[in-house]
């Protein structure tokens, strides 16, 4: 064997092992993050964490019940606002369409997806908080809802397109008009994929902090209705983590675990659910 061949062969082995190392590092990052949070946050999860309101500053105890409820309310609003628009928009792109409008809409949706969430927060502040003259769950829900729309739209379109032509033609053959075909045949056929897309979008916005900083603001107590500022998990984690109190730090870890757990479980369940059926297209 010539020297050159030896060199090439060893380079081969070295480089390929390096790539394996890269893959290993990337993958282990997730397990490390999860493990650390479980270890650090798990010991402070308690019944009071889930059911109590925060204690006065500097005093021990207290929990995050209002933040958990706040996040749930915000997600509900985001879903109510973002999902119908995204869904209907996706239906348009897949079923009606044409050339220019769908192209523009798709492109803009992808670009909107990439807009930093803090800019969305500023937008929601200017659009909702300033005219209403107070911070509110509603404003936070709008901010998150806008972020949900592009994902749901592209996802719906992609799954609707995957529905076989034969189903549509069968509906027409039975005398349905277009909207009936869409509503009764195509949408149900694609519903699994669409639902998973919605859940993934919601899991993503559940962890967003920046847009809530100046819309939902914060609340040390329960936030009744939709018009008052509300605490939310990510914002409370941020506030507690950057503060000096040891008790706050412990609570931040526990809350981080809860938030991460929610997001990861949703992602895992949804993706497993999807891949067990039709092949899915990653957005």
């Amino acid at each position, binding site marked *: 064997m010539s020297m050159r061949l030896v060199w090439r062969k060893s380079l081969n082995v070295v480089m*390929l092992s390096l790539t394996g190392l890269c893959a290993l590092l990337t993958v282990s990052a997730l397990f490390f993050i999860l493990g650390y949070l479980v270890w650090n946050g798990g010991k402070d999860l308690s019944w009071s964490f889930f059911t109590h309101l925060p204690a006065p500053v500097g005093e021990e105890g207290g929990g995050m019940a209002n933040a958990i409820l706040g996040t749930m309310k915000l997600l509900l609003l985001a879903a109510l606002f973002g999902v119908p628009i995204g869904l209907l928009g996706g239906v348009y792109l897949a079923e009606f369409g044409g050339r220019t409008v769908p192209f523009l809409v*798709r492109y*803009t949706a992808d670009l909107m997806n990439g*807009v930093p969430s803090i800019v969305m927060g500023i937008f929601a502040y200017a659009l909702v908080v300033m005219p209403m003259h107070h911070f509110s769950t509603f404003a936070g829900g709008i901010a998150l809802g806008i972020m949900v729309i592009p994902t749901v739209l592209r996802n719906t379109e992609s799954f609707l397109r995957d529905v076989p032509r034969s189903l549509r033609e069968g509906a027409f053959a039975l005398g349905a008009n277009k909207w009936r075909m869409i509503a009764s045949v195509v949408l149900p056929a694609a519903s699994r994929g669409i639902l998973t897309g919605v859940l993934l979008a919601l899991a993503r916005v559940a962890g967003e902090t920046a847009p809530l900083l100046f819309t939902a603001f914060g609340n040390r107590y329960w936030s009744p209705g939709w018009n008052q500022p509300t605490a939310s998990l*990510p914002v409370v984690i941020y506030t507690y983590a950057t503060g000096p109190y040891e008790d706050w730090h412990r609570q931040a870890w526990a809350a981080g675990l809860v938030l991460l757990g929610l997001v990861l479980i949703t992602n895992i369940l949804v993706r497993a659910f999807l891949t067990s059926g039709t092949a899915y297209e*990653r957005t």
Partner: protein
Amino acid sequence: MATTPNAATPADVPSNPQVLSRRWFNADDIAHLVTLIAAASILLITVLLVYQLWVLSAEARTKFGWHFFFTQTWDPVAGDFGALPFIYGTLVTSAVALLIAVPLGVGAAIFLAELAPPKLSSSLSFVSDLLAAVPSVIYGLLGVFLLVPIMRTTVQPALKKTLGFLPFFKGPSYGIGFLTASIVLAIMIVPFVLSVSREVLLAIPRDQREAALALGATKWESTWKVVVPAARIGIFGSVFLALARALGETMAVTMVIGNNPKISESLFSPGYSIAAVLANEFSEATGNLYLSALIELGLVLFLLTFILNGLARLLILVTTARGSGVLPS
């Protein structure tokens, strides 16, 4: 109608001909209109967003003009605002993050696309997608309590000892600063580089590889000299995508960057980024000029990410057949 059996082509599928006579109250047309409005709302929201940012930043734009981008001071007392420290911080942290994340991500993508058996490849790719789903504030949490002490006590002193002659590694090591923020960002954007690069590599036809191997190349040579160059446009696209993501990252960065609007070549020193200053100062900017200067920063950030994302999508589109659906129908 001899097109592919599985794709729905809207143009080919007709409305029910019987109701053509009642155009205006046709249920199909209502459906068409409603869904069109929903789809157009994306365009409307984007336009509204740009409009708001433009209008609300008017005061700062007229007062400072282009000078805004070259001024270093950020002085709320004197009413003098310049974007340079924030643009610098944003670009530096993103650039260093890319330096770390791109080799890592592309390397891992090569492994997953070329070497790993399909099942391993898709499950590892799945794990990487989960990593992308981790909220920014969690990264910040880990950054503040885990990474910062390690940087301060171990990593930065080590760098100083070995590479301290370089201007990048001078100065006191606080643990908080450009370098730490870059590392956190790198971990956050690796999944994006990985998933897009992997898809792009998988899309390169098999015969390319086989031709190289038939000519006597090692596996690595066939990958590095044939497949990767063929996919390089798409890989660039993934880099742009990751960059766009890194530019806009807020929470993790503001928790570890030091929040000091100073420009310094040393990576150990604290800095500021556009997203971080917005998070810190937006709800407190007293005075219209201050607020509009901040919003101008927001506008800059928005435009940067918008343009980068646009370029990225274009590049990825060109390489993969699937693309992102931008190709008309």
